[in-house]
């Protein structure tokens, strides 16, 4: 049997949960729909049959209540994993997360730990609309005491979820619904991926691109196109927002002199804002162009796909931003960009991109 298989992020997350439940009897899985036939987009399917409804626990529609319950159980030695099918649902539980999950280790001077994971999923497309597609990872990253992880690639997603469950801190895992479809090579069995900062996924010297969550997939597509015309970008997956560890990115920008941040969430007050600040503090003397940010515009997510035409950053927009940062204006670049734009035009804006295969 091969060590690595090509599986989706959704399957990788399910595999991680299965392994965690098998390894530690204190691990619990709870949420609205964790035992239902759809199994949180396939990420929890079958687990109740294997581990029983005392460990894989269907929840009433009471997000703040069951989040508080999970915190109480965590204080008593359980390791609950809470799942919300949309980030937006978790807003009802922010009181428990901000006041209690994030602060109890600190307030008790280390007397209590809160080992829990909260998975939440960003929706996109098929008319999800304004309250089913919010990318609010920086809201959670605002609060010291929470860790915030954005699993994006299959190998890492599996190892990050296992690491999050073993972590003695509350870990928020923000998954993009479209990332669930991305395939990658995933090792069999147990392993962890440390929750310790951004991950360099591509080396280059022309510019530094930092992307969060699904935008990493767009950034990689853009980097492929740019590489074809001799522009080698360094690409980072900003996989861990908290703890915030910008050192590797600052080092990269000190080499490239150019920074582009591509946010899955809002452009303003997004991860890009913090990163540009960190780079300004740590690489100001090496910047040859002002840093640039891409992200969502200043309005809620509309439902109609017509209104989404210019809403989400795309690989083409990333190519354009890098071209401006590097002042590259070749005929070859224009041709390559046109080919990319033509390919993207064949893809609906409102369903997950079927061409993405990975791995990287």
């Amino acid at each position, binding site marked *: 049997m091969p060590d690595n298989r090509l599986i989706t992020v959704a399957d990788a997350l399910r595999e991680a949960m299965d392994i965690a439940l098998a390894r530690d009897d204190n691990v619990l899985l709870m949420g609205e729909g964790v035992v239902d036939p759809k199994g949180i987009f396939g990420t929890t399917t079958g687990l109740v049959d294997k581990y029983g409804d*005392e460990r894989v626990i269907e929840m*009433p529609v009471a997000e703040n209540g069951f989040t508080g319950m999970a915190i109480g*159980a965590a204080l008593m030695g359980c390791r609950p994993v809470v799942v919300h099918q949309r980030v937006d649902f978790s807003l009802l539980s922010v009181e428990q997360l901000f006041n209690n999950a994030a602060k109890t280790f600190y307030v008790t001077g280390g007397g209590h730990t809160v080992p829990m994971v909260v998975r939440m999923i960003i929706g996109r497309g098929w008319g999800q609309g304004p309250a089913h597609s919010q990318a609010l990872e920086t809201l959670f990253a605002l609060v010291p005491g929470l860790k915030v992880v954005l699993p994006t690639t299959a190998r890492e997603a599996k190892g990050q979820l296992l690491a999050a469950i073993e*972590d003695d801190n509350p870990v928020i895992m923000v998954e993009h619904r479209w990332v669930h479809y991305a395939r990658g090579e995933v090792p069999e069995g147990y392993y962890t991926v440390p929750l310790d900062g951004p991950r360099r996924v591509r080396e280059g010297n022309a510019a530094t691109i930092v992307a969060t969550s699904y935008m990493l997939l767009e950034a990689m597509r853009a980097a492929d196109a740019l590489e074809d015309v001799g522009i080698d970008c360094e690409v980072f997956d900003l996989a861990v927002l908290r703890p915030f560890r910008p050192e590797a990115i600052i080092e990269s920008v000190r080499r490239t002199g150019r920074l582009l941040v591509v946010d899955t969430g809002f452009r303003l007050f997004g991860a890009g804002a913090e990163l540009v600040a960190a780079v300004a503090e740590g690489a100001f003397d090496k910047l040859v162009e002002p840093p640039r940010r891409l992200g969502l515009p200043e309005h809620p997510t509309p439902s109609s796909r017509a209104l989404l035409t210019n809403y989400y950053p795309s690989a083409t927009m990333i190519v354009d931003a890098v071209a401006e940062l590097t002042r590259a204006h070749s005929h070859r670049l224009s041709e390559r960009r046109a080919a990319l734009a033509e390919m993207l035009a064949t893809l609906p804006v409102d369903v997950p991109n079927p061409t993405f295969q990975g791995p990287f």
Partner: protein
Amino acid sequence: MSALATQPIFREALDPFPDLVAAYRAMLRIRMIEEAIVEHYPEQEMRCPVHLSIGQEAVPVGVCTNLRNTDQATTSHRCHAHYLAKGGDLRRMMAEIYGKAAGCCGGRGGSMHLFDSDAGMLLSLPIVASSVPIAVGAGLALKRRGGDGVAVAFLGDAATEEGVFHESMNLAMLRQLPVLFVVENNLYSVYTPLAARQPERPLINLALAHSMPAEHGDGNDVVAVHAITARAIERARAGGGPSFLVFDTYRWREHCGPNYDNDIGYRTNDEFMAWRELCPIDRAKRRIREERLLSAEQESRLRRDIEQEIADAIAFAREAPFPAPDSAGARVYA
């Protein structure tokens, strides 16, 4: 209206109280500790909010005399009495109020975050009803352990207005968890009376929505509180699930701080005096005298011992060092 709405569902006679003197001593100790806080607060050395339970001591003591150290309790901002009744360390409580490193939270929580893991005082949280689902989670963990431990959520009447309270009741009943929801109904949320916040109906009717066993009692009678709680705990330990208990009582002093505030206009002095007559400690003391459970000499020795303990705790707290300023950023993550 169903019988449950207006009558206790427990029909048995009240159990005889096991140790009235111990309960009296526990209430008196809480009263004397909080009166010491009143005395020292104007010195401006206890620089955090204090929410005193003076007048409400019978509920914490009546409940906690049924509990073991391994049982878990959560409470609100008004947490001193629960912490003390559950067995929380007095020195660490006073040091916390003084902001010292030896405090139970090392000076990070103040008076509203008291906890003591050795005593099963799991957590105090100052957001109304925020600690209620925490107790449900403790109940879930205790049930998973397979023993007969119980979790108690202490809450005030205002907490029953919060959504998360109702979510917690539903969760506890759905999963038949060993949890007691103990409401100390002191009739006010800060300055706003219950009648301005909730419709006219018995508070225990809230349990009807969840088919949860419920009982209403005199929160200034430690014997009644103990007996009502004993039955609920016995059922919880036997796997019979949660209970909802409502005890009426009265906060003597201001919502936050050491003073009386009957003069500012939200309640009358007559109302206060009527409740003052129902002092839970005086009532227990009368019964102790009637039954000759304590001689005058024993009584004064008991007081002297408590006075000495309090003086020692306050001296300890005052003399204890502050936490190092540069430690403020430590232990954010485990």
